[in-house]
């Protein structure tokens, strides 16, 4: 048998190893995700909230700010599904529109983190010279407790939705950057990255093709938890009067207003509270599921 003939035979014999078809590794991951009970439960819970947020103009008939002094302090049930508050505003409308704001803030904070956290983390992890400077700034920001820093920033900038997003961005981007940096440092030493260097690839190509796609998994896990933190922090800030300015409904300011009537109309504070809890629980379950499937190393540590 000739040399090449022998090689062909070896390859042909080795064939049953691989199955036909172009199968991106992502498909298997997706299948495992949808078999993960925690992930699916979290997805359903968060899906309900996300749906409420998206469909707010169509599923609420009333303007969330329409006053109806005749109908104040109505308990849930009857014409008002979730009752009314001290100005007779529909709590259902207010909570649904509040969900819209929470989701918008969550998405914005996640987007800011995805962009700037990745940029800073990748720069620090990949270019050793930048690492020191960037990470010391990072550490300084992370030295403050997250919520105190957010309170400080919004107190300085003044209460508004945009400022809440900015404040939460400043608070969480250093944390995201750390996580990205950690995976980039590991990936930078992978042999396939070395192979690309040996082939003459530039920094940009290496980052874009070899490092960032492989750093996505821990990043996605972090962002799903971050969404929950953002929603929770926003509620805290607006509860303290540092979020969106009333009468714009947010879960935080609904609860703040309901605080005075907790004895007589406990639903005002309970309904947004439970919705907030469901959102955070759903997102955390989603994140746990993602972590188990995408980043099994972390599961062992926890």
């Amino acid at each position, binding site marked *: 048998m000739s040399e090449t003939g022998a*090689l062909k035979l070896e*390859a042909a014999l080795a064939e049953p190893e691989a199955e036909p078809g*172009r199968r991106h590794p992502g498909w298997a991951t997706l299948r495992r995700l949808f078999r993960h009970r925690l992930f699916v439960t979290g997805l359903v819970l968060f899906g309900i909230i996300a749906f409420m947020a998206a469909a707010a103009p169509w599923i609420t008939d009333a303007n969330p700010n329409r006053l109806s002094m005749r109908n104040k302090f109505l308990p849930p049930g009857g014409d008002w599904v979730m009752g009314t508050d001290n100005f007779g505003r529909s709590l259902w409308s207010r909570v649904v529109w509040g969900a819209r704001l929470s989701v918008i803030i969550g998405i914005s904070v996640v987007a800011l983190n995805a962009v700037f956290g990745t940029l800073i983390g990748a720069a620090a992890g990949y270019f050793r010279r930048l690492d020191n400077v960037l990470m010391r700034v990072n550490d300084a920001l992370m030295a403050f407790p997250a919520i105190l820093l957010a309170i400080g920033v919004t107190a300085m900038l003044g209460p508004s939705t945009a400022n809440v997003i900015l404040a939460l961005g400043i608070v969480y981007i250093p944390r995201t950057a750390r996580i990205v940096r950690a995976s980039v440092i590991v990936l930078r030493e*992978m042999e396939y990255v070395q*192979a690309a260097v040996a082939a003459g690839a530039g920094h940009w190509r290496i980052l874009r*093709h070899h490092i960032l796609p*492989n750093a996505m998994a821990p990043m996605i896990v972090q962002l799903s938890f971050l969404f929950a933190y953002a929603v929770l922090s926003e509620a805290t800030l607006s509860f303290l009067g540092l979020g969106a300015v009333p009468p714009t409904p947010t879960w935080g300011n609904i609860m703040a207003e309901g605080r005075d009537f907790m004895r007589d109309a406990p639903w005002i504070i309970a309904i947004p509270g439970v919705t907030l809890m469901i959102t955070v629980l759903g997102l955390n379950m989603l994140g746990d599921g993602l972590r188990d499937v995408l980043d099994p190393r972390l599961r062992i540590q926890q």
Partner: protein
Amino acid sequence: MTRPLVEAVALRKHFTLGGGGLFRRPGETLRAVDGVDLRIMPGETLGLVGESGCGKSTLGRLLIRLIEPSDGQVLFDGTDITGLSPARLRATRRAMQIIFQDPYGALNPRMAVEDIVMEPMVIHGARPDAASRQRVAEMLDLVGLPRRAALRFPHEFSGGQRQRIGIARALVLKPSFIVCDEAVSALDVSVQAQIVNLLQDLQREMRLTYLFIAHDLSVVRHISDRVAVMYLGRVVEIAPKAAIYDAPMHPYTQALIAAVPAPHPAGRAARRAARLRVEGEMPSALNLPPGCRFHTRCPFAMEVCRSVPPPLREYAPGHMTACHLHDPQHRPATLEEAAA
């Protein structure tokens, strides 16, 4: 005499550990490669052996400038590549490639085989068109993989098949020099032979020059023309393979070869009793012994070995070693005398 394809001149790589950071304190220096002179001739396979931590892998990466040397030169086809501009370096990289040990870590899990093999071409200006895909298909033929492998992802392949993909990627730009860094060490023995044969076939077909780094002395003997032995950042012996294996001059080389388990059980008790043993382990490259670096473990160490580092000298045609035992100035009359 023909010109060497690759030449290292007084090459050094020192890593600084522990230092750095905002509060900089003086770090320790790890001398991974500490003054290596080496020539690799066109078309030959130079085997490079030594124990883990001896600097052989660092040396391999220095020769293709995957890492920057601290000092010294690397000449590739007569050109010093240590001072090249980024653009000229990139052009030179076409000619030198590396094959890695770990068949799992060496391929990006998120790229299809076609994209992996095509990447070096794209980096050097080719477009990912039909002609490039045709070239990838030819490479797959060459390394013995079916063409339909092109559209699959690394996780669908066995260790041996992945190593073939890594070889295809290394060869796609038709390089002349390949560093094989423990290229078969992680493979199952039954698959190892396939890859060794493939590397030899490819060398013949494409007139390749190899630096074959491995800790397995049997594989190195099989594939190499000449063999270099490294110990603590230095080359201690270099010679044609027959000379290295049949008449090793450096006591470290002798001990390495004696330590390899024999391929047959016959007479093993006698062999064990007669074997040249070295005690202890290789000292840390952070804290190098003075004089000859091997004197702390050498059964023949003399007074001079503790203070004067032996130079690498040619004692027989093509056979160089760095050991005072062979230097007429220091040589003891007999080895027995040395042992005493």
